[in-house]
């Protein structure tokens, strides 16, 4: 019983991490109607930035994290300026394809700059676990879960209650209409990319603290896709619940199905959950329902 519960609890905590990564997708989608498939690559850049500042240049940890936040914000702005701005108002297919090119490009870039070998990410959080009742929990994940919940509520409030956030929402509805209403589409998209870059770096820190990392970190970007889709790509607040649900169901799948299939269920289970949910509710649990025809 205790093992079952500990699977559920640690699954839930991992789910929050996925929710934080998925937040990067959602913020960009929520303010620009683009699905950035290269989110994992941006997360990898954030991780390598922290590593470079802390280990390679030997700066203090707090400073290198702040610098990494700043640089990843700029990287986000840069990508927006040179790749996505020329494509404002283009159809979904084009926007989707360009993120594929971006994925390949950033991978090559990271290989050139940082190489293919494994680097050790500095331990941002103390390595010792947290004891909660009978469970030992990863301290980084516990802190990460707190940060995720706080950020989700904050960002959700910004989107729904501030002028700037509502402008971003309008841009996500339709580029052309937003433009004709005099909204600054470019600024809205740029801010979203910058913020998404910073969030990815944050997720990288929580995910990698004290672990080894290589270019393969990017895979977690695709791993967060099911959480984003379960919530519906327009909902930031929904991510908390979606992450929790996905994490717990992954924990349960590990507990019950791994013995049957000899391991590896956790990698495929989220996608199956995603397909089933999307078939039942094509816009996710909390996504916008658009009316296509009357």
């Amino acid at each position, binding site marked *: 019983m205790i093992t079952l519960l500990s699977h559920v609890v640690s699954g839930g905590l991992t789910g929050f991490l996925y929710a934080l990564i998925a937040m990067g997708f959602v913020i960009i989608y929520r303010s620009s109607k683009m*699905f950035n498939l290269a989110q994992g690559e941006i997360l990898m850049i954030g991780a390598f930035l922290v590593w470079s500042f802390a280990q390679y240049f030997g700066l203090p940890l707090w400073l290198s994290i702040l610098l990494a936040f700043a640089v990843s914000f700029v990287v986000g702005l840069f990508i927006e300026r040179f*790749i996505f701005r*020329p*494509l404002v108002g*283009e159809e*979904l*297919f*084009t926007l*989707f*394809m*360009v993120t*594929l*090119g*971006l*994925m*390949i*490009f*950033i*991978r*090559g*870039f990271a*290989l*050139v700059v940082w*190489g*293919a070998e494994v680097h050790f990410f500095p331990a941002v959080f103390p390595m010792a676990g947290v004891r909660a009742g009978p469970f030992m929990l990863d301290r980084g994940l516990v802190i990460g879960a707190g940060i995720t919940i706080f950020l989700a509520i904050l960002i959700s409030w910004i989107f729904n209650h501030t002028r700037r956030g509502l402008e971003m929402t309008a841009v996500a509805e339709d580029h052309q209409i937003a433009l004709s209403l005099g909204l600054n589409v470019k600024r809205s998209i740029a801010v979203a990319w910058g913020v998404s870059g910073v969030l990815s770096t944050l997720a990288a820190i929580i995910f990698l603290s004290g672990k080894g990392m290589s270019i393969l970190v990017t895979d977690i970007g*695709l791993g967060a*896709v099911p959480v984003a*889709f379960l919530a519906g*790509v327009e909902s930031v607040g929904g991510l908390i619940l979606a992450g929790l649900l996905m994490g717990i169901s992954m924990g349960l799948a590990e507990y019950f199905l791994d013995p049957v*299939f*000899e391991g*590896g*269920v956790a*990698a*495929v289970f989220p*996608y*199956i959950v*995603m*397909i089933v949910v*999307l*078939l039942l509710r*094509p*816009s996710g649990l909390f996504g916008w329902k658009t009316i*296509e*025809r009357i």
Partner: protein
Amino acid sequence: MALPVAKYEDKALIRTRTQWCWFTGLIVLLFVLPLFGGGKVVGIMNIIGVTVIAVVGLQINVGYAGQISMGQSTFMGVGAYSAAALTLHLNLPVWITIPMAGITSAVFGAIFGLAAVRIKGFYLALTTIAAQFVFYFTMLKLPKRWFGRLEGLRIEPASVLGFSFDTDLKMYYMIFIVVIFMCYGAWSLVRSRTGRALVALRDNENAANIIGIDVVYYKFLSFFIGAFYGGVAGALWAFYVRYVHADQFTIWLSIWYLGMLIVGGNASILGAILGTVLIRLLQELMTSLGPLLVEISLVSRIGEQVVFASMNMLLGLIIILFVIFEPRGLVYRLNIIRESYRMWPFRP
């Protein structure tokens, strides 16, 4: 007044004598080129041939029908596994296994086509990623007797009536014939009623529905056809490499295939072929440029890695630049050149 009825000659794929000359020349060239090229050239051409089939299928699915699919390499994997398993366990001859592999893969693809009925746009593209993970998981979990799990499947060279396709060159002619056959099929398909229905579906689903196109059926069909091409490509891959393993069919392969479509040109069979040839050749260059530079001692061993990685950057950049500056792809440029050649000395 009677409406003009299209004559048989007007509907032909190749209409003029000049076109016939070009076509025959190209076929003859492709037929004799491997005889004079070295072993490496034949290898590259084989891979290009297999990739062309997969990308042409993807073109029908993505370019014509507008259903973004990131599962083409998975469909190839299903085809490769079924071809290998049919050969190993049932001893079926190659001219049965290749179509069978295509159909198995098509059925697998059509299941995801059913998802497309409800799921749209980005959601659909990312749902097809799930196909990748499900495929990988399943292949490594099914009984070892069937698909070999981690060891993969090894097969003997294909043989027809005692003639064994055991060298690259012999495989080249097999792939070559299948490529011609599949491309002809694709060209005919997109000019047919079905092809026009797929285009209508892509341009506006609701409008297509209103003019009487069965949206559900055609979405299903587009995945069926795309996956069929993927399956045939996978089967050829299996007979060429003679070893099938789930690791060979990664999501990156699917991403590259989509990249080839962009560079070649959306909604054009010729575009799919051009894009495949160009990107494949660049990829070959990418893997051989580094060692070559080391050999003539221009760069060090570490430099080799950098060369490889920078070629990756370059390829990514090419895809991005094509999306931004020439979304109609190479085939559009080619058409401009062809037109100005035809109209010369007048401006088109």
